[in-house]
């Protein structure tokens, strides 16, 4: 078996099995050397490419994670009407009410036969980044494709990755489509302060829908320029690292320079449009994550390691336990859909302001051996002003995280409706937000490894 795990974690049993059958992940020619992914992630061995059908949702859809998870994923209408519309289509009363269904399943256009000549890839890269921002992207990057960044499996005639079948020769795919565009939207900062709450769900889901719409528009525009655009073939995080969009944090999230961890990197476009790829960046995540551990300490399921990096599937990185993270959901779905705690507490996740930029620039300007001191100073400031775990009360659209989980109350001033089920406004005061579940309540069924 090529994939190795130095420190197995609870729930890793499924992951340590070979992900795909076939040739081990070694590549020849121009792809013999592994790609440069920056300081936070290193490829140190053969990487076996993951099939789209090996992802958590796909495993769950096949019932491999047990009946509770299967039922949670397939047979549940969300408790919150906004989450029904903006979240996964499985959780709406009618999936046709979810716009992502229409965006993802809409007809795909043909590539324009009149190809636009590109004399200067740098100029085209600037143009594509500007177009992506115009379509709504908050972060955009371009990476040079490498087989280790790709999902295994087939590519459909419409240019999307599909599982099963004979895998495509990935080095050939990279030669044919040498560039990966990584573009996504950021979650609203104020709303994800209500992590483990329907308000945070809204920030996550709506940004995901906007990202889907933006990528659909960008895909169509690249085809209009006369070039190919493949959706979902390349792995977003690997491409984001190579493109210089961000660095990989201890929480398993890409941490960007402007928005911190409040972005999700799932969508990519692989293209033959001549572009100029970016380079990995160094914003000090490697140094910060060694010291901080805020995400690991506040994760309700202990899915984030407090230990060192491990080598898994040939990649040296901090490895989260996705299974325990995922398995909490059926027990909390009446309070929230997506946790987001590791994102909300990350010191990099701040409003995009001058003092945040100053902190990152000061970290960047410090020589690497001396960064530990700066990190400790910045973390002390973060703990002092932002708290160790955010418990901020957030109110939006009638939602109020100041109401204790399980209680129902209308806290809107001036509401004259006869809330038969809620009761009228209660005396919820102060600035304290309640986020379910408390960590001590989850420790009973999810123990930290080695604890």
């Amino acid at each position, binding site marked *: 078996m090529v994939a190795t795990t130095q420190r197995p974690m609870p729930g890793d049993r499924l992951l340590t099995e070979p992900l795909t059958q076939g040739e081990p992940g070694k590549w020849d020619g121009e792809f013999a050397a592994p790609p440069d992914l920056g300081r936070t992630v290193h490829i140190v061995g053969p990487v076996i490419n993951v099939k789209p059908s090996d992802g958590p949702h796909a495993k769950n859809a096949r019932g491999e994670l047990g009946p509770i998870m299967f039922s949670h994923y397939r047979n549940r209408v969300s408790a919150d*009407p*906004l989450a*029904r*519309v*903006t979240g996964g289509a499985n959780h*709406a*009363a*009618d*999936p*046709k*009410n*979810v*716009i992502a269904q*229409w*965006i993802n399943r*809409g*007809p*795909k*256009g*043909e590539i*324009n*036969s*009149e190809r*636009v000549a590109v004399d200067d890839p740098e*100029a*085209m890269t*600037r*143009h594509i980044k*500007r*177009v992506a921002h*115009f*379509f*709504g992207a908050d972060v955009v990057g371009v990476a040079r494709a490498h087989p280790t960044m790709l999902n295994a499996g087939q590519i459909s005639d419409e240019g999307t990755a599909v599982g099963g079948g004979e895998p495509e020769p990935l080095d050939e795919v990279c030669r044919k489509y040498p560039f990966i565009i990584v573009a996504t939207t950021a979650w*609203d900062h104020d709303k994800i302060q209500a992590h483990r709450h329907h308000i945070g769900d*809204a920030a996550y889901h*709506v940004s995901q*829908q*906007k990202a889907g*719409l933006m990528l*659909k*528009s960008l*895909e*169509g*525009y690249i*085809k*209009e*320029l006369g070039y190919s655009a493949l959706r979902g073939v390349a792995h977003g995080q690997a491409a984001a690292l190579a493109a210089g969009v961000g660095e990989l944090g201890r929480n398993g999230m890409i941490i960007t320079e402007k928005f911190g961890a409040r972005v999700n990197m799932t969508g990519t476009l692989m293209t033959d449009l001549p572009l100029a790829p970016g380079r990995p960046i160094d914003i000090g995540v490697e140094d910060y994550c060694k010291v901080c551990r805020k995400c690991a300490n506040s994760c309700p399921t202990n899915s984030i390691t407090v230990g060192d990096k491990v080598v898994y599937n040939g990649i040296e990185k901090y490895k989260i336990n996705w299974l325990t993270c995922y398995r909490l959901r059926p027990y909390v779905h009446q309070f929230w859909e997506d946790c987001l705690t590791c994102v909300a507490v990350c010191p990099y996740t701040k409003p995009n302001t001058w003092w945040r930029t100053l902190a990152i620039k000061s970290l960047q300007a410090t020589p690497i051996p001396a960064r530990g001191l700066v990190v400790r100073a910045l973390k002390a400031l973060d703990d002092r002003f932002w708290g160790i775990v955010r418990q901020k009360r957030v109110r*939006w*659209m*009638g939602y109020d995280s100041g109401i204790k989980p399980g209680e129902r109350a*209308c806290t*809107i001033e*001036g*509401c*004259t*409706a006869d*809330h*038969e*089920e*809620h009761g009228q406004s209660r005396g919820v005061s102060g600035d304290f937000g309640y986020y379910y579940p408390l960590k001590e309540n989850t420790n009973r069924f999810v123990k930290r490894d080695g604890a």
Partner: protein
Amino acid sequence: MALRLGPLRIPWPGAAAKDPYWDAFINRPASDPRNAAQEVLRHAAGGAVNPNRVDLHSPEITAAHLRELAAFLGAERMGIVRLRDARADDATESESYPFAIVCAVKAAYDPRTAPGVGGQTPVRDGRFVTFTLAAYIREMGCRATNQKPADEQRLAAAAGLGTLNADGRLVPARGARIHVADEVVHTDLPLAPDGEA
């Protein structure tokens, strides 16, 4: 690229001047309409009404919440119109909606004069907002449709988003360049209207 001061457009040396592809992005029509996201959204029909109706707040509060949601989805303005003739004819109750919700989105370019993939982006944004608003109302358990009426500009004016000019186009009440979403949400969700039509 131009610096815009209200109705004034002052040529400004910016990124567009160095971007040889921008003009085609804004003005060249798509060779295949399916490559334009707004065309994909045109066929988004929407689903059924959730039979389990949620507990509603008072109409003023509900209207304020919809306004917050529309802004979060990307609408620059949103207005609610009470339709006076909603039940005037013999229309059955299922075809009759007492309220119309009109949205306007920011438009860097006017979609009427910029037929390119980029120039049509406000149309896409408008459909995104109206679809999601209507879908949200349906999932709350009230009836709602998002369809293109013949008179969205008149409804926008009635909702207080601006006034109509001689051509029947909306002139925004404030100076921002906006595009009135071509689809309007009709609903029976109890709301506090901004005007009547």
